[in-house]
């Protein structure tokens, strides 16, 4: 009798848990958030993603609700989500307000530092009952970063300038994820006195004297990177130009605050220290 009740209770408990997790309907409002959710095996719970969520490949089959800077409120509500995952400073504030008002659970993450990435993974793991997987993901990410750090620790730090746009000439400044990426990859951001993404005049950019110029590339942007490269061509006084160290790098790997961040750092480190860090 006791055994029956216990097994019934146990069954009931299992069902409850499984139905609980099965009824989560998640919408991700940024490609990097999508990647993280997939890495935590939460793909079945995702009902919709933002556009350009192209990794992993399966994510491309998911329904979209607009770009991460301009998601459609109607589309979001149409999917009747239980949780929405957003990125601070990317998703428009007024939209987030509306979503909060509509009573849907909103998880917002900032991504200016690799610590933010770890916290995000752990929080998501906790929220959706994937603590173990989250912990493992974090650990492997930390290990990767640690390995790279070891490799580059004693190497000379080149001055790195990351240019993301030609018109206006936009560069990566302090307090951004890419700034941390430069440091983790064994370099130093040539911009030390501007926060965020400053639009520097060419003359001001020249004064920075970068050793390396990196251009994050995403699909369809080949023209832009060509234009940026040719805009530096004639400036041989700049070390990066003189030594032909203007590179494009995989934009998705390096700018996304997700599970592939480690790969992105490795990619960048290889560009910064080609002899010491193999691909």
């Amino acid at each position, binding site marked *: 009798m006791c055994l029956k009740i216990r097994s019934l209770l146990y069954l009931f408990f299992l069902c409850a848990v499984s139905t609980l997790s099965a009824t989560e309907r998640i919408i991700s409002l940024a490609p990097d958030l999508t990647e993280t959710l997939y890495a935590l095996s939460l793909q079945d719970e995702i009902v919709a993603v933002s556009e*350009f969520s192209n990794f992993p490949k399966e994510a491309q089959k998911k329904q979209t609700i607009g*770009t*991460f*800077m*301009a998601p459609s409120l109607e589309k979001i509500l149409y999917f009747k989500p239980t949780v929405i995952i957003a990125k601070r400073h990317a998703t428009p504030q007024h939209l987030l307000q509306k979503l909060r008002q509509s009573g849907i659970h909103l998880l917002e993450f900032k991504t200016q530092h690799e610590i933010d990435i770890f916290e995000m993974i752990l929080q998501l793991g906790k929220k959706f009952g994937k603590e173990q997987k989250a912990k493992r993901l974090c650990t492997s990410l930390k290990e990767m970063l640690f390995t790279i750090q070891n490799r580059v620790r004693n190497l000379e730090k080149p001055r790195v300038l990351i240019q*993301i*746009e*030609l*018109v*206006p*000439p*936009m560069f990566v400044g302090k307090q951004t994820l890419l700034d941390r990426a430069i440091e983790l990859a064994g370099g130093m951001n040539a911009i030390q006195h501007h926060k965020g993404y*400053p*639009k*520097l*005049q*060419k*003359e*001001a950019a*020249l*004064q920075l004297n970068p050793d390396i110029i990196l251009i994050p590339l995403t699909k*369809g*942007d080949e*023209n*832009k990177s*060509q*234009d940026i490269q040719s*805009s530096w061509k*004639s*400036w041989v*006084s700049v070390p990066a130009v003189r030594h032909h160290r203007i590179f494009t790098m995989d934009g998705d790997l390096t700018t996304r605050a997700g599970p592939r961040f480690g790969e992105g750092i490795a990619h960048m480190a290889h560009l910064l220290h080609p002899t010491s860090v193999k691909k």
Partner: protein
Amino acid sequence: MIRTSKWIAEISSLGFLFLLTLFTGLSIGVEWISPVHFWDPLFKNIIWDIRWPRVLLAIIAGGALSVSGYIFQIILKNPLADPFILGVSGAACLGGALGFLLHLGYPLITFVSFLTSLLCLGVIDFVSRKHVSTTSHVLLLTGVFLSFLFSSLVTLCLSFSEPFEGTSLLFWLMGGLSFPIPTPMLWISLGILFFLLSFIYRKSYHLHLLNLSAIETQALGIDALKTQRLFFILASLLCALTVSLTGMIGFVGLLVPHLCRFLWGNDPRRILIHCFLVGAILLISMDMVVRTLFPYEMPLGAMTALLGAPFFLFLLWKRSSP
């Protein structure tokens, strides 16, 4: 009536001021480079690859917009008219927006922008031929509503754009002199500009006669509607050229004609050249100030309005006070 000696004195002093501003524009920037060092291998690139194209663009934009604004104010008989009042600049913006959306390279964006504005100009001209009007109301209203249409299409383009693309497009729309125009394109534009200006100047007497009502102009031996249409096309070409190169730099086209009229009277035979020089001087100076004060690329269009509006209000109130 043109007192030749006075006119020559004015042109000479303006010309001198123009050259002075040109040299100052080349010397001043993030760091000061004295003209002696302009060809120094150390500074050569900064002067000739960064500042010189900017100064050239300032001359083209400042001069073209001023003359275009002056013409529009006369043919529309409206002191509030500026080059952007009719839809041609809006069409240029739309062309640029499409260029950005299609990920075209920079020189192509300029080219597409110019083409769309020519298309719009053709349409307006065709419409104005069919609906010949004795007043300029039809032309004005057609242009204003076309302007609305184009700006809403541009906003649509912005909403369809990818995140950083939108920033690029918005920055271009706000107007500036930092766009990477290849040097041959700059020289061709300068050539087109001078061709247009010399043609306008040769016909400046007819423009002067357009100050009168259409029937009076006709009675004086000038085909009023044909001349109005001709000047509309010329002024729109100037505007289209500028917008496709530099985006919308507002206010210069409104302010400079009024300033020149205030200082030197209203005879285009006299002040067209003044308008050109003052416009060029103004834009070179403003750009010079803005890029020296801030290390950032600022939207020049917004800055011209910010500085120009209070000055213009001051002028207006001074004149209207008893």
